[in-house]
């Protein structure tokens, strides 16, 4: 016998009731009047799966419902009429050794997804997209930046054309599926910088061009930006962000009352981490590129060191070696410089000859 409440489904009247099973028949009595409220064969009822110790409902196919907090008695009833499909969930939830195993599994799987799953699948998808779909991608960003703070280059047309030809002539033996274009802009706020758009557009700021004491330094930077394009870094970064967003909604879609900060912070740190990975990948590309072209890797190191030291009071962001380009959301990439990064090139910086 199970004690609980009975509701017939037509109105909200509560009947304190008792449920008993006799043979194949379930009988619900009113506890007070002893009147039979429902008599039905046991095949016509559905027992809700147990969720902790919350109130358990038994529903009947005539639309009526019996509620009780006596979960133990309902479990016994269930064992008698129909062993439920979902009872294993309750079992999982109530075995403490399982808790530790599950917590450990979540941490391991979570780590593997973050380390390999998300970046790996983003990389795969980005390379599945036909290259010609990328031809316009990101051009809007440049238009926006032109409006916001970039200005036309002050370099002479000749100088621009010479550099453009120098860069493009390096591409001869490479098999690229995205055509590369070169633009120059006065960086202003951005200072000495270069960035690549997924469309194959690479933009150098005048400040960067003027900072180089040898065009081979600029070729080194060009190699790095080429790496971003060839490795589809921007598209991968967008994909990774959306994977993280979807996973967040799936896992804790109802977390709004705690504020977004708690969820946003780890997601932000993760994206930072991915962004650093992209920089390393682009560096590796630049190194291979320079070796292929017989350019001393020291040219990369030298321009990087100068970028790091360059005083640029207007924009701390591009100068600060440790800072990632958070404000522009990875659309373009500054050059975070660390000792490690220079070490990767295994060469001391080329000394810049005194400039006239």
């Amino acid at each position: 016998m199970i004690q609980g409440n009975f509701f017939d489904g037509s109105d909200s009247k509560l009947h304190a009731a008792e449920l008993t099973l006799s043979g194949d028949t379930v009988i619900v009595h009113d506890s007070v009047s002893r009147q039979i409220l429902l008599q039905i064969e046991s095949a016509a009822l559905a027992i809700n799966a147990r969720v902790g110790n919350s109130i358990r409902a038994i529903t009947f196919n005539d639309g009526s419902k019996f509620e009780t907090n006596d979960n133990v008695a309902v479990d016994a009833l269930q064992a008698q009429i129909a062993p439920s499909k979902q009872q294993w969930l309750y079992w999982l939830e109530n075995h403490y050794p399982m808790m530790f195993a599950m917590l450990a599994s979540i941490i391991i799987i979570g780590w593997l997804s973050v380390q390999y799953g998300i970046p790996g699948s983003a990389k795969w998808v980005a390379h599945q997209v036909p290259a010609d779909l990328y031809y316009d991608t990101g051009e809007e960003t440049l238009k926006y930046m032109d409006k916001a703070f970039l200005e036309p280059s002050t370099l002479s047309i000749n100088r621009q054309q010479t550099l453009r030809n120098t860069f493009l002539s390096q591409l001869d033996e490479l098999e690229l599926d995205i055509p590369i274009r070169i633009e120059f802009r006065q960086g202003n706020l951005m200072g000495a910088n270069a960035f690549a758009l997924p469309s194959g557009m690479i933009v150098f700021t005048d400040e960067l061009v003027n900072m180089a004491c040898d065009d081979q330094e600029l070729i080194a930077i060009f190699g790095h930006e080429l790496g971003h394009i060839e490795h589809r870094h921007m598209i991968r970064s967008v994909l990774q962000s959306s994977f993280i967003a979807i996973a967040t909604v799936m896992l804790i879609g109802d977390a709004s009352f705690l504020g977004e900060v708690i969820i946003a912070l780890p997601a932000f740190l993760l994206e930072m981490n991915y962004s650093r990975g992209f920089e390393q990948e682009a560096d590796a590309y630049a190194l291979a590129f320079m070796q292929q072209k017989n350019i001393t890797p020291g040219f990369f190191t030298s321009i990087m060191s100068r970028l790091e030291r360059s005083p640029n009071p207007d924009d701390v962001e591009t100068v600060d070696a440790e800072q990632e380009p958070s404000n522009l959301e990875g659309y373009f990439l500054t050059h975070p410089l660390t000792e490690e990064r220079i070490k990767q090139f295994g060469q001391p910086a080329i000394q810049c000859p005194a400039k006239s």
Partner: protein
Amino acid sequence: MDKVDPTINMSGENSSTLTPKSYEFEFTGSGSEYFRIWIVNILLTILTLGIYSAWAKVRTKRYFYGNTHLAQSSFDYLANPITILKGRLIAVAILMTYIGLATIYPIFEPLLILTLFIVTPWLIVRSLAFNALNSAYRNIRFNFVGNTGQAAKEYIAFPLLILFTFGLILPYIRYRQTRFTVDNHLFGDTRFNFIATSGAYYKLFAIVFVAMIAIGIIGFMPMANLGELKEDPEAMMAAMAVYLPFIYIAMGLVGVYAQVKLLNLLFSNVTIADHQFESSLKVGRMLWLHISNLLGIIVTLGLFYPWAKIRMARYRLQQLNFLAATDLNSFTASQSENVSATGDEIGDVFAVDVGF
């Protein structure tokens, strides 16, 4: 943990009396129990690449509903996980298409955002209807009967007036949206009523507005006078270290104040038949809950989350009363209709806030 004993009938349930009786909402969920449900949900969601999240949502909702008690009975969540899964798959497909289009053809992005903006009223209505129809109390379902046209008026047409009224219409809009949400909810075939006046919203918004201005003045005025500190970055940093936390804490305080007063204003003005709700949340207690939950989650790297959620639900329900004119036995059911979960779930993914 307190248990509701379903065998004892409520005094006064059988005799109709004119003295209003106050029924207290009670929440009996426990953090450790929900923690175990939560862990299993997360693990299975990860292992099934998100498919299980629909089942996880139902199980979580059932746990919270089944532990929410009012007048001898508890609430029940009836949604079918398959329906939710379909909704989620559609939502993810739309989200991925959106991201893909917006990345590759950024020119379409404004158009896509506009489309999303236009379908928002539909999403809100669907989401509210799905949730209401799948929520039941005493075997009587809730319902939501607002239509998309009305929602478009409240969530698009009126908000557009903000531009022409310097924001003065904002409290009125919030009032209308709340009224739209409440008035279109039904329990069985009985409508809820929202009896607050827009004046109460103007008063609350005015207090919040004045508080924000005050924080702005107190927080930023001294900084404006620190012009000479610009030369001395260290002193500037020291000044920021004092003022920024002040501003954050003060803003947080105002945010919690607004949340508490809005919730009280909402629930204390909801009536159904001759009955009325009463919410008496306190700012200090809510502030403590937010701060301790936040700290708990940070210190435990997220593992405190289930306790945080339980504590919040318990406090909110503990402060909620139902003032019944008679007993709760005479609500009758209405013909229910099935609503697809798509609205609800797309709303989840795009984080549509219906302000309820």
